[in-house]
């Protein structure tokens, strides 16, 4: 299976990490894992994943900044990002209003609907 797509999971909750990892692996993706934003950023550069599954915990500047760092980096800006968050739709609207960088390719609220998540991943990677 040489054409397996690689997903970088950035997630600081250990149980959610296990969960997402299992979902992705069970459905034919390889994963790499990072437990915070900085590690995730470095790993995205070294591993060149096909997709980033990014947990954003804070509904404020910090969360936006983490995301923006990916989208403003020339090496990383073309890697699609799915934001997975418990923060809610307010944050999605907030992100949508911001200008100057690519909007996230996917947005998923916790609790995770695994079928929807998998479809979203498959759709994005098919493009």
């Amino acid at each position, binding site marked *: 299976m040489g054409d397996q797509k690689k997903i970088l999971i950035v997630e600081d*909750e250990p*149980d959610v990490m296990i969960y997402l990892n*299992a979902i992705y692996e069970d459905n034919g993706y390889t994963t790499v894992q990072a437990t915070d934003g900085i590690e995730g950023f470095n790993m995205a550069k070294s591993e060149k994943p096909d997709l980033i599954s990014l947990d954003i915990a804070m509904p404020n500047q910090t969360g936006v900044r983490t995301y923006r760092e990916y989208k403003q980096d020339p090496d990383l800006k073309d890697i699609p990002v799915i934001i997975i968050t*418990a923060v809610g739709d307010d944050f999605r609207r907030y992100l949508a209003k911001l200008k100057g960088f690519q909007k996230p390719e996917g947005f998923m609220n916790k*609790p995770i609907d*695994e079928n929807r998540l998998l479809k979203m991943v498959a759709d994005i990677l098919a493009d």
Partner: protein
Amino acid sequence: MAPDNKVDRWIRDNLFNAVPIAIAVMDKEFNVVYANHSFEKMFGNWKNRKCYAVYKNQKEVCKECKALATLKDGIPRISEEAGYNKEGRLTRYIKQTFPIIENGDILFLVEMSIDITDTERIRKERQLLFDQVPCNVMLIDKDFRVVRTNKKIREMFGDIEGTYCYESLKGTSRKCADCTAHQTFKDGKTHTGRSIVKGKDGKDINFQVTTVPLDVGDGQFELVMEMAVDITEMVNLQEELEDAHAFMQSLITTSMAGIIAVDHVGDITILNPAARDIFNIVPSKLITMQELEYMLPEGFLNQINAGPGHVHLPETDVQTIDGINVPVRLVGFQLSRGKSPMGMAIFIHDLRELKQLETDKIEAERLAAVGQTVAGLAHGVKNLITGLDGGMYMLNSGMNQGKVERIQEGMEMLGRNIERISKFVKEFLSFSRGREIQAELCHPSDIAEDVVSIYKTKANNFGVELIFEKKGDIKPAPIEYESMHECLTNLVGNAIDACMTSEDNDKCHVWVRVYEDDTNAIIFEVVDDGCGMDYEVKKKVFTNFFTTKGLGGTGLGLLTTKKIIQEHGGKISMESRLGKGTTFRIRLPRKQLPKIIEHNDEPKN
């Protein structure tokens, strides 16, 4: 007729020398040829001297010599002269010059001089007094015409002699209704009154006027002397004083603060409406010193009297006149002018409304916190559900795939998250309950020492040294022991965690310090030299559900700590440097600590 002859002879032989008038006879060449004793007494030696030398100590004929004129036309003259007497002193005299004529020729001149030096001096002095006395003086006649004015009047009103006083001074065409001169003319007595006159610059000048009859010696008088003192400045000062008084009075009356003033003999001189309101005293009722003492905190008046400086009670209770407690702020101080005491003043700020607002605010803050918590709850719950979902997924997929390890992991995830939910709910309930704090007198250092002794062993096991430090003497304070214990436990727990997260954790320390600062605030400090926090973490430390501990924390610990500190009227602050350590400081000002709730010990059956 013998007596007559004798008289005639006396007149002829002696009168010349006996008359108190200086008489000299001189010829046409101004030589004094004959003079009487009075002349000699006045001007000294005259024999073989020229008149101008004798009279005036001059060497030539005087420029305006009256004698020369009489020598020419033979007409007698009277003149006022100034010369020098035998002592060489300036002498004023009136001189009459008569010619002695025989057959149409003027043979000699007779000059008779009366010394008026003293009279003149007195006249001058009187004029000087009249002009220079620091008030306006004028004489007016029965028709109210100004007969004479002094210099001050002329300076103020110009030359008004000959005019009607009411016209030139007041610009009216009729004499004034309250004219004091009129009264003096009527009854011959001294009268005083006030008069307002327009000055040259059009401004009002206020005069205090006195009129006296100018008695010329026989009880009759034709003139009245009017003396007027300019009291404009005094009147202005008086008006300013009245204004200042009215201003102060309205400030006192409308002041939101209660104001009470007591004079030096103990009479209550000011009790403004705000004070009446606070003490429930009806508007017209006067109060006594005893009543005041009853209403104020015990010993407050004595404290003021002990002076110096003011006595300030930021939060205390007074009693209304009918014995109801009112929370107030009190300031009292002695009043004095120089060294002489004038009494005391007391300011009372009613704190009832403020207290109510404070209670309302705390309640509003609590409700807001609960609201935030509920909003945050959704966030927390979503993460917990995701954890449970993950557990379920692992369990199901493990069973489907027949992977025992995965089933095991799924079970553990479910267990962890269920435990987390239970802990979360417990802490949430504790945080969100509103309650009255149950403070009791306890030693602040005991709380800190107890927390340290409980955690010392645990800390040691993690390689962290937990140190208790007490500085100075700290008196007992009203604190809810268990809550404060919980706060310190939270902070110590965090500090130990910070040490364990630190990369260099084999020589980590946590200090728990307690002391009282110089503003009467009790300070607890929990200091660690652990990992410290970065800017992002620092910002979020006291917000709901923030945790850096993953599954280990609920994010409610510091929030609960903050809430307890606030309930004690205190504040918690934090300093942290990444990699250097963190200091949490709890500051509890004694005056804001909760009151100890009195438990009514009802007799038990």
